[in-house]
């Protein structure tokens, strides 16, 4: 599955003489400490010692909270118990039952948010992938302004999320925004200035903003992958008389498949969990039409301070993501081995 074969920057640098010189005594303190441990144990233990800080940090911030989160979802953890959560009474499966009870307001809200998120994710991945592929394919070859365009396309990716989204929220303002200025004043497509950040249009606003921030990532990955397709494949097929379209369909797209497999999965996980875009675009209360799941859980947790229910929803979200990921991986690898 390894596609990247480009030499990495270190390789060129590595050929240079390293900044070693004669050993300086002051720098060797660490080695002197490790020298106290018997050689065989040192050999065996050193890699573990090296990864220990990373393991401890991952445990503290990711794995322990995950376990705690699952435990919290079985507790009646309301605002009275936030600072003393060991005193919170058990709730059994009550938090889960109410989250999937679609007759209750909580369950209905969650189901609605889930539906919105699925629609948003499918559209956003499709668009980001399409723009990324089109951009990467058209960037092939050499032409004037190529480097400049590439740099420009990277800017939305490098921009801090909140700065980018806040700019879009200014552009989507009803009275002073650029979008309505173009649509109503310049193109005359509507008589009345539509609202973009409340009501049904908010879904469109969210989608456009998100795709703007995300397609450069797809573009980056696909550009790198395109550069790794051996050029003799194209030369051989050109001798056989294959045209540009034929080459795109029979060489480029099939060769991009392994990258696409990873890219689509990564985009799926990022998009489904996206919090930044709706949070900065709409403020703390996202309109119902753009109520993505992360912001839904966030709001229902921090408005009601019912962390037990919020944790149950998070665990359900995790289970869903794991399920989709597993099915996706099985389906895509099977199709690949058939081919």
């Amino acid at each position, binding site marked *: 599955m390894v596609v990247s074969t480009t030499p990495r920057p270190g390789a060129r640098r590595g050929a240079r003489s390293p900044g070693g010189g004669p050993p300086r005594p002051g720098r060797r303190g660490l080695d002197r400490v490790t020298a106290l441990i018997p050689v065989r144990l040192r050999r065996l233990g050193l890699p573990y010692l090296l990864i220990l800080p990373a393991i401890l940090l991952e445990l503290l911030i990711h794995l322990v909270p995950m376990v705690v989160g699952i435990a919290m979802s079985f507790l009646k953890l309301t605002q009275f118990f936030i600072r003393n959560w060991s005193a919170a009474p058990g709730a059994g499966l009550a938090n889960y039952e109410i989250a999937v009870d679609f007759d209750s307001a909580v369950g209905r809200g969650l189901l609605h948010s889930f539906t919105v998120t699925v629609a948003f994710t499918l559209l956003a991945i499709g668009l980001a992938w399409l723009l990324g592929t089109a951009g990467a394919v058209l960037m092939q070859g050499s032409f004037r302004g190529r480097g400049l365009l590439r740099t420009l396309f990277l800017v939305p990716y490098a921009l801090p999320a*909140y700065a980018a989204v806040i700019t879009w929220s200014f552009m989507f303002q009803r009275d002073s925004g650029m979008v309505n200025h173009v649509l109503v004043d310049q193109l005359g497509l509507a008589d009345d200035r539509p609202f973009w950040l409340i009501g049904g249009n908010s879904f469109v606003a969210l989608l456009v903003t998100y795709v703007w921030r995300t397609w450069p990532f797809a573009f980056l990955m696909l550009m*790198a992958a395109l550069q790794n397709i051996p050029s003799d494949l194209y030369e051989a097929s050109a001798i056989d008389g294959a045209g540009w379209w034929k080459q795109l369909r029979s060489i480029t797209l099939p060769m991009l498949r392994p990258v696409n497999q990873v890219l689509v999965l*990564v985009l799926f996980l990022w998009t489904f969990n996206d919090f930044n875009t709706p949070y900065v675009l709409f403020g703390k209360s996202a309109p119902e039409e753009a109520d993505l799941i992360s912001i839904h859980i966030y709001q229902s947790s921090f408005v009601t301070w019912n962390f037990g229910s919020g944790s149950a929803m*998070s665990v359900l979200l995790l289970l869903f993501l794991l399920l989709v990921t597993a099915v996706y991986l099985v389906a895509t690898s099977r199709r690949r081995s058939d081919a």
Partner: protein
Amino acid sequence: MREPRWLPWARWIGLGSLGLFTLVPLYVMATSAIKPLGDVQGDFSWIPTTVTLQPFFDMWRTVPLAHYFVNSLIVASAASVASVVVAIFAAYAISRYRFPGRKIFSITVLSTQMFPGILFLLPLFMIFANLGDLIGLELSASRTGLIITYLTFSLPFAIWMLVGYLDSIPTALDEAAQVDGSGPLGALLRVVIPAAMPGIVAVTIYAFMTSWGEVLFASVMTDESTRTLAVGLQGYATQNDVYWNQVMAASLVVSVPVVAGFLLLQRYLVQGLTAGAVK
């Protein structure tokens, strides 16, 4: 690849549209930042009629932007440096040693990147709040808590990218250093790190960007005194009037350092990022 005659046209139209789509928000940001308040509250205009630098002075007074800026700078610098130090050791172990658990470690670390942030948010908030009461280590609403959290966000990608860089440095180099009498750690410090420097700088920038732009955890794990830019910038919008010109000026100012850093090191960063995901 043989190019058909229509391809240059398709390229112009396709890349031109993408370029326009990318450019318009950047243009709006830059031009609105130099408009007087009246011009950003009324009808939008593409070309500023009056140009003023006043928003760049006023923005520091409307909200305590300098304070947020310093907080973001402290948190992002500390988190990125610490993350890269931890990542160098881990990447060195993965790149140079074959040990039981190596694969499980790599996969576990990478997969934490994929889990929803909201899943960690509530428990972490609780853990930090309770640690404060329990052992007197006040992590909630503190910069330290935020630094530790952000550190782990960039850690998986940092390790992943650094393994790629370290793999490309010939092991003969560290063996030579070890023959000269330094231990494995000496070889790491004296030979491997200098040789991997471009990669390390690129990863540091990446880690800095991650922390500088994080919103979710910043929104609940900070209070007024530790607030970072991610949350602080929204302060302009909660006033009666939204000072859009100041918002745009502030967005511009907080973006320039990270965008410039990214673009300067894009060659190394893009190689590292794509090598990670393409593998």
